[in-house]
């Protein structure tokens, strides 16, 4: 029973975490827009009256808090509905692919679900934090972007390398288990 639950949990994680990552990145996009630099650049496009611009910039923390409350309340409800719809689509797809391709897709999601939480729970928050932190530092734009690129690409190589190492180790273990079962 525990093994079956683990298999189902891995498949669920593999499917849902990608969808969650994508929509969460969309939801946090306004945080990147509501910064003084961006608002200053948008001034000449959207603000005809300097008083309107000053009103927004001075009350920026209020706008940020309002948006974050909206995201955690209405956004959570919306994400829940999206995940229910995605779950139904996922079950239909698994049923169809099982008829067509056997157990290939199930095995893929079980194995993928083992490694995707590392990407979601560690890499994505670290990337977001680094980008926001680098934006605050008052250095030349070239160095800022260069820092972001270097850190990201080091992390890309690290994650890919780690994943490949885990997979090759686990694969040897899985194959030996299969060989034991089948004599």
């Amino acid at each position: 029973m525990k093994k079956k639950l683990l298999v189902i949990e891995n498949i669920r994680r593999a499917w849902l975490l990608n969808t969650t990552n994508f929509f969460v990145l969309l939801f946090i996009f306004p945080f990147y827009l509501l910064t003084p630099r961006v608002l200053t650049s948008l001034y000449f496009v959207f603000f005809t009256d300097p008083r309107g611009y000053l009103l927004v910039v001075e009350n920026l923390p209020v706008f940020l808090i309002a948006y974050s409350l909206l995201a955690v309340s209405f956004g959570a409800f919306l994400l829940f509905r999206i995940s229910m719809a995605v779950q139904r689509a996922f079950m239909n797809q698994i049923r169809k692919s099982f008829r067509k391709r056997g157990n290939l897709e199930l095995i893929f999601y079980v194995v993928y679900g083992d490694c995707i939480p590392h990407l979601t729970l560690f890499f994505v928050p670290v990337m977001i934090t680094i980008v926001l932190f680098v934006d605050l530092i008052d250095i030349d734009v070239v160095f800022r972007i260069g820092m972001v690129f270097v850190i990201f690409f080091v992390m890309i190589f690290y994650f890919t390398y780690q994943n490949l190492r885990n997979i090759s180790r686990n694969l040897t273990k899985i194959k030996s288990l299969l060989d034991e079962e089948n004599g």
Partner: protein
Amino acid sequence: MRINVWAIIANSFRVDGHVVAIFRRVISSVFPYNILVASELQFVVSLSEFEKLERALEQKTQQESGGGIRIIPPYSRVGRVLVGIYEFLRGIFVKLEKAENKHLIHGLLLGVALFISVWLFYINPTFGIIVFVFMLVYHIVSYPDSVRHVQRFFGLTIFGLVRRGTIISILEPEEIESGLSSIEFILTIFVWGLLAVFIPQNTIAIFYEVASAVLVGISSIAYYYFSSINKCWDDPTREISERDIFSYDFLVFFGLFTASLAVLYRLVPLGFHSVFGWFVVFMTYLFLSSVMAIPNFQTAVSISLRWRGISSTSDYDLLEGILS
């Protein structure tokens, strides 16, 4: 000295002249447009004279320089280089003529046409639009599959991204091949947009550059994923190791991905660098989720084939037991 075929036949079969005369009349009636001229039908030359002719020819050959064999002189250094270039270009054209590379040729030509029309737009907007519309219509008419390629590309990448939150999909080899050709088509069209830095900047050029950078970034990730899972199907028992990330394919498409981000960075307006930072986060997440799926897919193919092999073996043993 004339060689007489009839004399050879007469001597070979030891027939007399009377019989050969009848034979000659029969042949002349059968072949009205005769192969042999009538005046040459003579019993003049014997077989020994044929041998004399052969000896004379041998003597003549030995008197020739090089014993009658003409040695072709080797190429000079310049000649070798030119021949090498010719063979190289000929090899390229032979490959391009194959049906499986048709989409690459059309993609490259459409990409160059698009690049030229954007540049012409800067010189004369009306002329640029006319050239663009003409080239587009011509390419669609000459290669109608281009519409299907565009549809398949957006279905696999952009709509797949909205539906599943990732580019990853589990596909059969035939589906992968058709997907790969569509991605190659889009990549060969828009890779020229990365060179749009040399075009004088205007609205259309900036729009073209942004669209090219985004599409090249997404298609480079998709191409690496699809080509890697194709290799998984080709060799399901392949041993995966961490050294695979240092393959030539990975480095080339990583380079394209970096180039597209670098082109976008150039175009980011002052103050919007946090927005560009969000875009970098989004694209690297896509890149990583696709790259991490490849060894998992290899594992899944390997294990599912192993299971199929084990169940086939047990079915075979059962069948053998029944039949024996």
